[in-house]
């Protein structure tokens, strides 16, 4: 844990007074990281980079965008047609939102599989859930800004959900709208918040990283790091691995941005907003579909809204629902199966959210919704009692070495854990 060797006198002068170079060296260079992380651990840094891409493209878009009901749609088309490379910036931003959610959802499911939410990383996990909530709010308001038909009607449907809250519901909706219907004040405040929230996300991301660096990354074995033989420095090992992952990610994203830029959008959003004409089906963006399916599965409006929010709220208490001391699903034979069933359930909810709420789709939505909560509230606590985990390897070094004869027997996990 030595400081960096600073040779440049100016750098040394600055670092002595403001130790940014020492800090960066400590947190991004020598930062000891488990050496067995697989490619699923790339998605954290990918999410961070996607956030930066979104903020940069967003700032440029806002220079050309007009937040007014009479000009918003037109200004977006101006960006597409007359602003130099405006089409590129907007397609990156619009598809970037989808890719942000793809990356973050994979990041979350990686955490679920390898038990990254367990002690001592509960707060790290909860901060992540806060980021997810902020992302959803930001994405929702961003989708309203082009002021197309889906923008307008999506905003109308989602803001109306709050009217289900007893007593204060109607007042909250009026406050969200800035009036008595979705109109110009709504668009203005959504633009303002859409610009603000990404910087709040940056703040929470910083906290997320501080919490991460307290104990370091979890790893595919889910066991604690025993010492230097289990870790490697972040740079160059994980910087180069992340750069390779980033290149793959950017290639896929570029393929969509340049060749299928509207594949994840809805055609109706190329029709200007019209309060007098309701689209045949009001469908949210794909990343909201599982929650939309849960909302519609419950026959009562208030209970549906509560179920939808509970679907995310349950993630906050996940570290206390899953009491199993073993983190990684690799050593939890039953949980491993349950994880894949749960993933399938989420995929099914996504599909059902896109289907009309009628016939068999309603029945399936209800079954999947019940299973979603059953997984968290019944299965996970029960598993922690009934499941017999497989025996854990003694250290990260051992399985990687394939032998481990020379490695001293480690102390029990509990004794090693820092308070």
């Amino acid at each position: 844990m030595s400081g960096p060797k600073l040779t440049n006198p100016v750098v040394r002068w600055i670092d002595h007074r403001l130790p940014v170079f020492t800090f960066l060296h400590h947190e991004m260079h020598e930062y000891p990281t488990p050496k067995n992380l697989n490619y699923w651990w790339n998605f954290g840094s990918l999410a961070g980079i996607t956030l930066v891409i979104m903020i940069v493209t967003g700032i440029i878009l806002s220079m050309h965008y007009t937040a007014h009901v009479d000009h918003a749609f037109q200004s977006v088309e101006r960006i597409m047609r007359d602003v130099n490379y405006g089409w590129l910036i907007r397609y990156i931003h619009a598809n970037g939102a989808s890719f942000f959610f793809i990356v973050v959802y994979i990041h979350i499911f990686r955490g679920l599989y390898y038990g990254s939410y367990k002690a001592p990383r509960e707060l790290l996990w909860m901060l992540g859930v806060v980021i997810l909530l902020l992302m959803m709010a930001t994405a929702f308001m961003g989708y309203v800004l082009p002021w197309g038909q889906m923008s307008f009607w999506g905003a109308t449907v989602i803001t109306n959900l709050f009217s289900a809250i007893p007593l204060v519901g109607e007042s909250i909706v009026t406050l969200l709208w800035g009036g008595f219907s979705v109109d110009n004040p709504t668009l203005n405040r959504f633009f303002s918040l859409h610009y603000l929230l990404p910087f709040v996300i940056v703040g929470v991301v910083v906290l997320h990283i501080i919490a991460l660096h307290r104990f370091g990354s979890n790893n595919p074995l889910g066991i604690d790091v025993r010492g230097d033989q289990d870790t490697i420095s972040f740079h160059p090992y994980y910087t180069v691995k992340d750069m390779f992952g980033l290149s793959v990610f950017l290639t896929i994203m570029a393929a969509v941005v340049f060749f299928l830029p509207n594949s994840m959008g809805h055609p109706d959003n190329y029709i200007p907003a019209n309060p007098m004409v309701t689209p045949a089906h009001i469908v949210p963006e794909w990343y909201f579909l599982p929650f939309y399916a849960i909302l519609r599965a419950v026959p009562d409006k208030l209970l549906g809204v509560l179920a939808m929010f509970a679907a995310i709220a349950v993630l906050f208490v996940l570290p206390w629902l899953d009491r199993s001391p073993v983190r990684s699903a690799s050593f939890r034979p039953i949980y491993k199966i349950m994880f894949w069933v749960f993933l399938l359930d989420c995929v099914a909810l996504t599909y059902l959210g896109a289907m009309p709420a009628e016939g068999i789709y309603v029945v399936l939505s209800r079954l999947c919704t019940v299973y979603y909560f059953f997984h968290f509230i019944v299965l996970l606590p029960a598993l922690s009692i009934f499941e017999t985990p497989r025996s854990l390897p003694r250290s990260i070094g051992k399985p990687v070495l394939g032998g481990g004869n020379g490695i001293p027997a480690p102390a029990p996990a509990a004794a090693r854990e820092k308070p």
Partner: protein
Amino acid sequence: MMGCLQKLILFLLTFLVTVPVATTARSAESIPFPSQEWSFNGPFGTFNRGELQRGFQVYKEVCATCHSLNFISFRNLTDLGFNENEIKAIAAEFQVEDGPNNEGEMFERAAIPSDMWPAPYPNDNAARASNNGALPPDLSLMVDARAGGADYLYALLSGYHEIPQGKEVGEGMYYNAYYPGNQIAMPSPLVDDGVEYVDGTRATLVQQARDVTAFLAWATEPNMEQRKRMGVMVIIFLLVMTVLFYYSKKKIWSDVH
């Protein structure tokens, strides 16, 4: 390690394949229509200038009577292969309102290349009043604004068939095989030899439908060719970058056991 990487790529590819499927499934009530070969399909697709110019002629002589093209200005027509003088001549056929002048009066003048394509009606109410209560939509974004895009537009324009037995069509409505609900307020806009093509192509109904659809695809996204050209370069760049980082990673990690 490649095992994990392959899984990752497989996962993302699966996603990319399923998303368009889910999007198509959303427009459940639309009637299936055949897909067409378009010169602008695919990653290397470009517009056919002859097709665009014919399509523009169909728009100008037929569609423009009722449909606006609000996001296209005369200068954009350079994309179609017209030169500056041709565009000035096309613009000069139209009178637009300008002003106020120094006396405070609005005045009419001949359009110039920087003017937007003039709309046929002063406002939506005027458009409805002239069209039996129906509003002819603006055509600038038609291909992106309809599920199925160009294929759907072509099917619609060439889909005015005889009313099948047992189908009822309301007052002032027309039967169309592909319009959702089969009843459309627009009468068949195209007829065989409805226009006389400047380039001598025989103006059958399907030829006109094809040409004007291609023109609308251009109007929807005039930058499409630039986008695809740049996309090919960017993908090549990123693939090279991916390979370089793959081998860098392999080399740097070679001492980790």
